[in-house]
């Protein structure tokens, strides 16, 4: 395993960049994609674009172009807050069909060069380059010439297939590659060997490591550990005593750039979920009917997701976020796996009884866990396969498409 080459490829400002392909005149100006009902640009020849300043609502930024990021706007930020920072930025609605199309295109382009790909979502992948011809070749003065050529080839093919740029980090493992793909964004290419770790990796903040979240990061800060180098210098036994055997040992390895995880080309999803943030905070009692309708709708969507992907769930869970942003989850295990909307709704309802409902809610989600392939269980799958349905009047735009949740 000592001579693996693993690349992490991350598309640059993916959703926003796809939109720029459609509206090239916006190139160079701040653009934000987001909002459930951001109005589409008017197609009356003049192409008038809605500005962020005119947005009223509680949508969040899904992606921002680098021009918008320069003004302080970032993914996950409320659109109204973003409007205060960049009132003149153009606001575009998310078009997930389009993003999925480009996602397939760029992955197909990479697969032509390097077929061992781990799918990490719509806009990022890990690629195992170890077996790619020529990758280990070096030139006098540049031992990484082969790797560099392969990575450049991948970038060029992605660009040719989609018109989009990506950033690649290529190192001996996934952990370092993930770190490196972010170092020279956008359109970056960062190669790194174990020998470069002290110079390139150790000065970075510890929280840049994928796996050190806000909580661990805060604890490390308190202990005086700020950079990855600080972490690498820490006594591994001391880390284990502070963070437990597993996590402590992992922290030590991660700081030294050690990671033996293979590139996994196929994995079964562990859970499927659907969630939605409301237009306004809803009160469990006063808005009972509205909430009930939304709740049922989420369960129906989840059942449809399960059916489409051919899974049944052994556990059903809910997620609530209160108006003060506190989030709670509850989960219940079913006597036997199900994919039926009614059963999901009933058990999600039981979960709901186990949480306090004394304040307004801003988010509601339903999750199906413990997935197994339909038919694997003793009970036959529900005989209500998708049948002929009346076509939608308004297209996909106003449906719950944008809430399609984590599928991993």
């Amino acid at each position: 395993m000592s001579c693996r080459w693993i690349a992490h490829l991350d598309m640059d400002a993916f959703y926003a960049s796809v939109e720029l392909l459609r509206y090239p005149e916006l190139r160079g100006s701040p653009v934000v994609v987001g909002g459930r009902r951001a109005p589409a640009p008017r197609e009356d020849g003049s192409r008038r674009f809605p500005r962020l300043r005119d947005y009223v609502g509680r949508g969040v930024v899904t992606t921002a172009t680098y021009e918008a990021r320069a003004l302080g706007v970032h993914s996950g930020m409320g659109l109204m807050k973003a409007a205060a920072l960049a009132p003149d930025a153009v606001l575009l609605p998310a078009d997930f069909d389009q993003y999925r199309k480009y996602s397939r295109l760029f992955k197909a382009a990479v697969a032509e060069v390097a077929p061992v790909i781990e799918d990490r979502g719509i806009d990022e992948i890990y690629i195992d380059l170890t077996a790619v011809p020529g990758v280990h070749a070096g030139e006098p003065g540049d031992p990484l010439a082969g790797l560099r050529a392969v990575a450049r080839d991948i970038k060029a093919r992605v660009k040719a297939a989609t018109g989009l740029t990506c950033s690649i980090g290529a190192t001996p493992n996934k952990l370092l590659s993930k770190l490196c793909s972010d170092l020279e964004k956008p359109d970056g290419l960062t190669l790194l060997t174990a020998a470069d770790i002290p110079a390139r990796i150790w000065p970075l903040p510890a929280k840049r490591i994928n796996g050190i979240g806000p909580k661990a990061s805060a604890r490390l800060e308190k202990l005086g550990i700020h950079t990855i180098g600080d972490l690498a210098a820490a006594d591994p036994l001391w880390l284990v005593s502070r963070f437990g055997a597993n996590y402590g040992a992992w922290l030590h390895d991660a700081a030294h750039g050690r990671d033996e995880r293979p590139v996994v080309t196929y994995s079964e999803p562990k859970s499927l979920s659907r969630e939605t943030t409301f237009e306004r905070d809803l009160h469990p009692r006063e808005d009972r009917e509205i909430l009930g309708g939304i709740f049922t709708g989420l369960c129906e969507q989840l059942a449809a997701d399960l059916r489409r992907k051919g899974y049944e769930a052994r556990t059903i869970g809910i997620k609530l976020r209160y108006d003060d942003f506190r989030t709670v989850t509850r989960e219940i295990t079913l006597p036997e796996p199900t994919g039926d909307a009614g059963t999901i709704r009933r058990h999600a309802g039981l979960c709901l009884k186990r949480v306090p409902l004394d304040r307004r809610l801003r988010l509601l989600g339903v999750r199906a866990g413990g997935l197994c392939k339909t038919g694997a269980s003793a009970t036959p799958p529900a005989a209500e396969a998708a049948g002929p349905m009346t076509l939608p009047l308004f297209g996909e735009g106003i449906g719950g498409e944008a809430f399609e949740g984590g599928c991993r």
Partner: protein
Amino acid sequence: MVLIKTPRDTLLAPLQSVSGIVERRHTLPILSNVLLEKKGDNLTFLATDIEIQITTSSGGAGGDSDGAVTVGARKLQDILRSLPDSAEVSLTLDDKRLQVRAGKSRFSLQTLPADDFPRMVVAEGDGKHFQLTQKSFRQLLAKTQYAMAAQDVRYYLNGLLLLVEGKELRAVATDGHRLAYASVGIEAELPRQEIIVPRKTVLELNRLLADNDEPLNITLTANQVRFAFGSIVLVSKLIDGKFPDYERVVPATLKNHMVAGRQLLMQAMQRAAILTNEKFRGVRVVLGDNSLKLIAANAEQEEAQEEIEVQYTGDPLDIGFNVGYLLDVLNNLHSDEVQWSFNDANSSALITVPGDDCFKYVVMPMRI
């Protein structure tokens, strides 16, 4: 202290007008109650589910004292309804209990204090106001309300769009697969305003409005709508959301037009519907020269065929629909004939009434 002494119907009729919105099982017990308020000869009834509030009053209450109390709406209504028509009823309040007496019947009901009863803060001031007859508004509802969504995640579809502009009032309802539009002229000339009236309010209005030429006064404010008719005042909160742009959905140019007798078409559909798949309710509509065929089949492979004579000279078409969506509209129109216009089997169809611009129904086909 006798609060009220009056013939049964003086109590029952107004109670029935307000009690329709009372939820059977509510988390707040007092919301199962109706508020009775007696002042002089006048008796006021008030019920609410927090979203909607209905008040009505009646005179001739009799009795010798004033007062106010809340009592279980459903129970009081059931008691009054099962008493003989001619019964003289008295309500007496003593020690937190309401005694209902009629002839030799006695009922003792628990009460909750009138002061605890939640009343909606009714918006005062400059709402937009207009008037039309109860009948014409009821017809507007009848032509559209069946197309409302019931429990859609897109919560703004679970209601009826009311839009005033100039001298016109429009109503639009859609569940995302079909859309019903109707308009009616009004006296007042108003700037454009649109509101979404919750489904429950619409159904309740449909129940309460009379089919007569008595006036209905409607007042729109930013977050409430108020309907006053007869002795009833209904105030409802609105659905806060953006209704889809219905004008975009109504097809502007359609090339194939069919005209058929409404009853004839509806009856053929009702028969064909018997053998549609219960879940999907698909029916094939096959159009040829002056002929319309309906073909339905269910999961058991049973089949129905109907053929009726229509006026049609357009392209031959074979197009699927949910028969429920078609029966809904045919059922709620009263014209002799309907016009049905198509482009092709994949795009929306439009149902209208010949010579009447005030009604449109758009329905999407289904792929069978």
